[in-house]
């Protein structure tokens, strides 16, 4: 707790630098990452991160200094080049995009390693520290880095806000963007440039491999919580910032811990929890929905059986035994009993010593299902000219889905019919 307070008082300048740096970096790359993710190009960040290395080395060889601006410029050039190459290879040959990405990133990285080792073996004393581009050095951020980070973060955010509408259209409907005269090519170039920017700066903090996570993981997590791009961007930035702070905190409490990997670990956990538990799109929510649907279908099928038995005997409210119910339709016994007890609890049927009987509400609901089934059969035969013995299966499915509005429309469309294609009465 003491450490916690110490950390969050931000009294120590070093803590302040590391935290602010991590937050700036994580949130700005998360925002850019949203666009690359939505353009289904999540892995290009990885490619850029690897391709930066030869640029850094070349810049060093050419200039002979470790001036960060010159190195960043070199990094920027090769990072950008790699994306252009990936596009070129994919569009001009039968090589698929993922192959092109893998090829370009590993070859660029190979060239980088070759140059780096060559520089290291050349005995040039100034070279030490070049390899911080490989693994990052989030824990040793100083004031100067912070200024660069801050500038880039602000630049990225401003560009995103300025071109928000254009970029949005680029992500969701390229053809439309083209048709209303947007300069799609230049916009793509802009997005590429933004990505490269984010990567080139971020790589110094978290390193080559993990940079990809800074771009895509917050974006992918945010995608699960919302359907709106604006919210998604904000959410991704918050998730990024949160993991930035947590990563800095962990490496503060345990100095041996690397900041970058912890940021990535935390952001991944957030993402995985989002995949599982996000409302609507999450895995658990979908499972529950599916179960709910299944139960609803079972219940409606049972009520339908009751109603059909009632039609047969022209008596809807007398007792039916289980065997009686299951003669027309083969539902596994335990499942059927389960469904029956659920229906009883909801008041659709009543338990009698030798079986179950429909209540008034149960009769209404069962009748509705039967009516929808027959209406749909009739609709299929009349409007799609299907043979009457082909329509049953389809109606079995749709009877659980049709809404009251749709039901009304069907009735109007079919002119309030009385008989279905099998000449049974539509109730």
């Amino acid at each position, binding site marked *: 707790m003491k450490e916690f307070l110490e950390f969050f008082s931000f009294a120590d300048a070093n803590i302040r630098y590391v935290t602010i740096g991590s937050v700036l970096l994580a949130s700005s790359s998360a925002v850019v990452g949203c666009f690359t*993710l939505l353009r*289904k*190009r*999540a*892995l290009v*960040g*990885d490619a850029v991160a*690897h391709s930066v290395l030869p640029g850094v080395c070349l810049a060093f060889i050419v200039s002979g200094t470790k001036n960060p601006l010159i190195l960043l410029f070199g990094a920027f050039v090769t990072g950008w080049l790699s994306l252009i190459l990936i596009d070129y*290879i994919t569009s001009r040959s*039968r*090589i698929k995009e*993922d*192959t*092109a*990405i*893998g*090829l370009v*990133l*590993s*070859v*660029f*990285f*190979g*060239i*980088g*390693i*070759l*140059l*780096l*080792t060559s520089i290291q*073996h*050349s005995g040039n004393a100034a070279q030490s520290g070049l*390899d911080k581009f*490989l*693994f990052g050095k989030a824990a040793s951020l100083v004031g100067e880095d912070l200024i660069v980070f801050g500038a880039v973060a602000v630049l990225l955010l401003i560009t995103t806000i300025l071109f928000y509408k254009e970029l949005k259209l680029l992500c969701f409907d390229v053809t439309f963007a083209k048709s209303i005269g947007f300069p799609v090519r230049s916009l793509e170039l802009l997005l590429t440039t933004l990505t490269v920017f984010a990567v080139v700066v971020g790589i110094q903090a978290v390193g*080559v*491999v*993990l940079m*990809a*996570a800074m771009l*895509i*993981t917050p*974006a*992918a997590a945010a995608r699960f919580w919302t359907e709106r791009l604006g919210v998604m961007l904000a959410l991704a930035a918050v998730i990024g910032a949160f993991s930035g702070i947590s990563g800095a905190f962990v490496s503060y409490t345990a100095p*041996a*811990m*690397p900041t*970058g*990997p912890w940021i*990535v*670990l935390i952001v*991944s956990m957030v*993402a*995985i929890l989002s*995949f*599982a538990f996000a409302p609507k*799109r*999450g*895995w658990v929510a*979908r499972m529950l929905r599916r179960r709910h649907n299944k139960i609803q279908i079972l219940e409606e099928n049972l009520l339908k059986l009751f109603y059909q038995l009632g039609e047969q005997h022209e008596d809807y409210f007398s007792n039916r035994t289980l065997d009686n119910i299951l003669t027309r339709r083969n539902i596994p016994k335990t499942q059927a009993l389960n469904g029956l007890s659920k229906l009883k609890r909801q008041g659709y049927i009543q338990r009698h010593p030798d079986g179950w009987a429909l209540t008034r509400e149960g009769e209404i609901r069962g009748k509705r299902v039967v009516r929808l089934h027959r209406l749909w059969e009739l609709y299929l035969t009349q409007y799609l000219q299907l043979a009457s013995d082909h329509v049953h299966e389809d109606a079995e499915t749709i009877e659980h889905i049709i809404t009251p509005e749709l039901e009304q429309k069907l009735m109007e469309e079919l002119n309030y019919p009385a008989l279905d294609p099998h000449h049974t009465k539509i109730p």
Partner: protein
Amino acid sequence: MVGDAISHAVLPGIVIAFLFTGSRDSIPMIIGAGLLGVLTTFLIEFFHRYARVQADASIGITFTWLFAIGIILISVFAGQVDLDQDCVLYGEIAYVPLDLWLTENGLSFGPQTIWTLGFVTILIIAFITFGYKELFLTAFDPGYAAVIGISTTLWYYLLMTAVSLTTVASFESVGAILVVAFLVGPPATAYLLTDNFKTMLVLSVIIGIIASIVGYYLAYWLDGSIAGAIATVTGLQFALAFLFSPTHGQLFKRKRTIAV
């Protein structure tokens, strides 16, 4: 890209295997990494299919996550693990001859890595020879393969195990990233040169061998990393094929369109 993901994601497997056995013995490491490789494939599939994460994002998230865990494990047990991050990322093939396999009575069998790599190579060749039909069908027509009773899932996972094996075996020598160049480069080059799958297999092996030899001399000349040099040559080969391939090259394509 799955190969790339696996090559990064096996890192925690290697570290854990190392922590359990306390030695840099190859066998436990290969087992640990193999398991992680299969787990990676499974996770990617799981996120994609059950959580409906976009395919490319699910790859990116899985491997960075596992890689981060690996790095953290290395840092936690830094005192005990004789692995460093540099070695993990780009290896050093030049040290291979130094790591000799000595029996207890001092008999030398030559470099250990050669034995491991040799064994894995034989294993892979055997795998491809015996599983050729199944692999071929799974790659080209999974629907048909499933119809004639081949379990595409099983073969997919077997293939991914093979990928992890290769990755781990090459790990010490070339590192996690450059192994991707070896995995992707030669086949992509061969793919531009031929339309026949068998020819492509043979061709990619030949291309790989040429790349290693030329790469070695390039590294010698520049006094740099051998693995890096081989990857560079792989890239050059691809560029050549991309431009000059008789069937798919850019130059000939252009000429053809002009002639027409």
